[in-house]
């Protein structure tokens, strides 16, 4: 009886917390708006292959008769130089951008968090080595480093993700490390050591959970930046390749038709703009609720 209650209740506090966070998030009007748009974007990303009006236009199919048509009832955002529906492609582009951004940030977190936690929790020479390597990476402008790595690996969307992850992890390492150093001196870490917890367990069971919050905020704010970077890389020809409906790539190709077909560059550009903006706004909102100093209850 008691046992069952224990197991059942163990889920409850988490849900309570999530609900509280959502409530706090939705209190700021701008944050609420961005939250709605982000959720919308995620939905679009999930269902886009099934809802777009011209699924066949997403990849290769050419339709020369309808090329470079202005927005109309048939083609909401107009068509491109191959007669493909830009609306379908922009919608599908959401999926690509969010996916690559999430993977790139996730990869950066996977590299950055353990390194930072180990550096901060261990200290001494290990800390020194990890943080100096981090400094080397930080000394390059992130976009430049990403361009260099993407160029080195060869142009493709996967390589662009790897390039972004490599140029992004040092930021997370730094944040985690700073937190981890302060956690190291906390009593509960000493207590954990006193009952024989192994260093690895202390790092992943105590250090990481206690300093993850600022990294989550940073990561959610970075998603906007990463989407922008992917678009930049694609624009430069170092990211997504030809038939892929990637926003940056679409903007890049549209340059040739810019004077005659404004809709071709405007809509993918708007998509980038809106997505980056809402993710940044949401990130700001999250920082506000996760930092008790700026939280207003």
């Amino acid at each position, binding site marked *: 009886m008691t*046992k069952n209650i*224990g197991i059942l209740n*163990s889920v409850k*506090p988490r849900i309570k917390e999530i609900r509280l966070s959502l409530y706090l998030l939705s209190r700021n009007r701008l944050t609420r708006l961005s939250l709605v748009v982000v959720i919308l974007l995620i939905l679009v990303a999930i269902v886009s292959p099934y809802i777009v009006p011209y699924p066949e236009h997403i990849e290769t199919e050419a339709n020369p008769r309808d090329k470079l048509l202005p927005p109309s009832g048939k083609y909401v955002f107009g068509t491109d130089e191959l007669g493909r529906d830009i609306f379908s492609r922009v919608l599908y582009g959401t999926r690509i951008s969010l996916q690559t951004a999430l993977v790139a940030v996730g990869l950066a977190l996977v590299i950055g968090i353990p390194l930072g936690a180990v550096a901060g929790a261990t200290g001494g020479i290990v800390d020194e080595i990890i943080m100096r390597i981090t400094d080397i990476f930080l000394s390059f402008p992130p976009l430049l480093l990403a361009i260099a790595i993407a160029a080195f690996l060869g142009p493709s969307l996967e390589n662009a993700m790897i390039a972004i992850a490599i140029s992004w992890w040092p930021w997370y390492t730094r944040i985690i490390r700073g937190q981890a150093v302060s956690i190291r001196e906390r009593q509960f870490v*000493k*207590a954990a050591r*006193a*009952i*024989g917890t192994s260093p690895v367990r202390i790092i992943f069971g105590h250090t990481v959970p*206690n300093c993850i919050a600022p990294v989550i905020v940073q990561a959610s704010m970075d998603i906007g930046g990463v989407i922008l970077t992917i678009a930049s890389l694609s624009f430069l020809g170092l990211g997504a390749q030809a038939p892929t409906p990637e926003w940056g790539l679409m903007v890049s190709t549209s340059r040739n038709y810019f004077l005659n077909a404004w809709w071709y560059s405007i809509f993918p550009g708007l998509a980038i703009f809106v997505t980056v903006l809402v993710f940044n706004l949401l990130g700001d909102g999250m920082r506000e609720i996760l930092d008790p100093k700026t939280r207003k209850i």
Partner: protein
Amino acid sequence: MGGYFEIKNLKVDFKTFDGGKNVINIDNLSLDKGETFGIVGESGAGKTVLALAILRLLFSPPAFVRDGSILFEGEELLKKTERDMQKIRGRRISMIFQDPMSTLNPVFTVGEQIVRVLRSKNRVSRKKAVKEALEMIDMVKLPDAGRIMNKYPHELSGGQRQRIVIAIALSCGAEMLIADEPTRNLDVTIQAGILKLIAELQKELGVTVLFIANNLGLVSATCEKIAILHSGRIVETGTVREVLKDPRHPYTRTLINAIPKNRGQRVNVEKVSFKEDKSVCEGWCRYYSRCTEKQDICRMQGPVLRPVGGMHMTACHLALKGGGIGGKGNIEG
């Protein structure tokens, strides 16, 4: 003497910017299995350092164990590898820290924390660990274990938290418990509850307890034997009765006089030496600067622990001369 747990000739130094400082220098301390041994001293006397040294948890630098041996059931702890020590900590020797407010990880529920410890020590299923955790919470006399399980540390009171900490410390079947001022920051009624709990658990589970406190009153209530620690050295040791009835060291008398008594008596301020320790020259009695009864001999050689009858030993030159100069400490009742 049993020799279940023995410290011999332990010297711990702190090496800092301006040279080394000896913070622990204990010739002999031994515990029998199942007894409660109290260590008393004011803050800065080296109590916590001693506890951490036993579990080899001191950070070095700055702390270095210069010399000595710590024997636990005949095993030399100072020669163990870090890996072996991890097996001893928790499973055989466990520790409770002084501040229950910060000993628990704030991001997990207390139940989760007990379960984790249980699962990391013996590979059991989550379900079984949850059941065991509930039993542990029952064991430390917290009502409604199922509800407590899902509380975060900040939702519990200091006393409740300290009980959880005790549950965690004992959850791995430790035979020896180092309790480092377990009742600090708790108010007196809660203190009494925790002390009673430790005493009961000790009887039930037969654990040996090394009880560290800065208050002679607490120790006299729970321990059989005590040692008075001053500036890293034991200045007086014996059974509680011997030491409290017939304190031979001026420092012990200061500690006794500092306890507020019942019956409307105020703390005997004149007899309490509040003064800070001033550093004294090497080879002097370490208590020299504060001692109210100091004599020339105290400057010539440092006193060593010498028996004064029974198990009672004290490190004071004056204690030997005609059984305690300056009268007995007035502890009554």
